[in-house]
């Protein structure tokens, strides 16, 4: 049995869907933060929360996937230390994909605003109303987000370096189109 050479279709779909949602949620967060109070702002804040909770759910799904699947091996031209660094970075990304939405949810609870996912499903409040805590969590949410952007920047730079400079298969393993390996599901 030859090992899979690519991520499964499920892993690829979840990866790119998450990347797309973050590309929407992050700038939306920055933009709405700067707006003066208006119905438009309140709508955007709601959409931001719905997107963030969706990212959280997708991250849980990805972790569930990960428990049942080892990622396909990286090309063996990549030195072991780089493979370990990549792994460490992936773990950090997973942590942030969970912790950032949680910090947003905590912030909402602390500010006394329950999160109602898609305007339909009310999530339980994680903490009681506490103004000072809410403000602190707002700072933490912002800080974690800038941390995420830094890590994603490194992640993307590494992927592009492998593809265009090293010309190895690292990126192809995660791209939806391209020759199919074994073990697709």
């Amino acid at each position, binding site marked *: 049995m030859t090992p899979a050479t690519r991520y499964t279709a499920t892993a690829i779909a979840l990866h790119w869907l998450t990347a797309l949602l973050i590309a929407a949620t992050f700038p939306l967060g920055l933009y709405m933060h700067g707006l003066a*109070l*208006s*119905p*438009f702002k*309140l*709508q955007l804040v*709601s959409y931001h929360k719905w997107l963030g909770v969706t990212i959280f759910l997708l991250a849980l799904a990805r972790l569930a996937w990960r428990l049942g699947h080892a990622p396909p091996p990286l090309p063996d031209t990549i030195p072991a230390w780089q493979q370990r660094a990549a792994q460490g970075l992936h773990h950090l990304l997973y942590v942030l994909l969970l912790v950032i939405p949680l910090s947003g949810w905590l912030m909402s609870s602390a*500010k*006394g*605003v*329950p*999160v*109602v996912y898609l*305007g*339909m499903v*009310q999530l339980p409040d994680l903490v009681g*109303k506490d*103004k000072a805590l809410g403000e602190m969590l707002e700072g933490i949410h912002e800080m974690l987000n800038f941390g995420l952007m830094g890590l994603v920047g490194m992640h993307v730079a590494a992927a592009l370096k492998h593809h265009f400079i090293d010309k190895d298969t690292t990126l192809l393993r995660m791209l939806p189109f391209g020759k199919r390996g074994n073990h697709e599901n």
Partner: protein
Amino acid sequence: MRISHYSLPLFLLLAHGAQAVEFNTVQPAGSMVAFAYKQMNVPMEGKFGKFSASIAFDPERIQSAQARIEVDLASIDTGFSESDDEVAGKLWFNTKAFPVAQFVSGGVKALGNNRFEALGKLTIKGRVLDVVAPFTFKQEGRVAVFDGTFSLKRLDYAIGEGIWSDLSTVANEIQIKFRITAAAAPAKK
């Protein structure tokens, strides 16, 4: 039963007191005026920090019950200072021109089981509308607690005009919750 001539005056005094337990001395510490509404279907709450209430209520003689509550609208606490400033503005309460909301009762109806209904006029932002506010009455010794809730439609009072009149963001229905604690004093004759 034979009543001794010593206890007779005391008995009469007590009987007289029981007849006229009128709760009319509002205790601000045990009273509140709060509200709840939905924003993008999210349940939100807030309260008013300053209001004054004067009531007179004897559960045995509700035909003479009276209530008057005045809420200082600028004392609103929505939980967000930005929102507090916004609702004090022209599009919402316009507190410069209309600083108080006022409820004046016109009568009380007994619903049984210590439940009542206050009928009255609610004035906000220069508009006067009839409201019916159901409330419960709970007596503990010389103190009574009145707990009630009613809802109003904010656009009936032009609360949230212009861009805010869009009801898909801040819903039209606003629940008002009140609790008035009042001590008993001998009825004024």
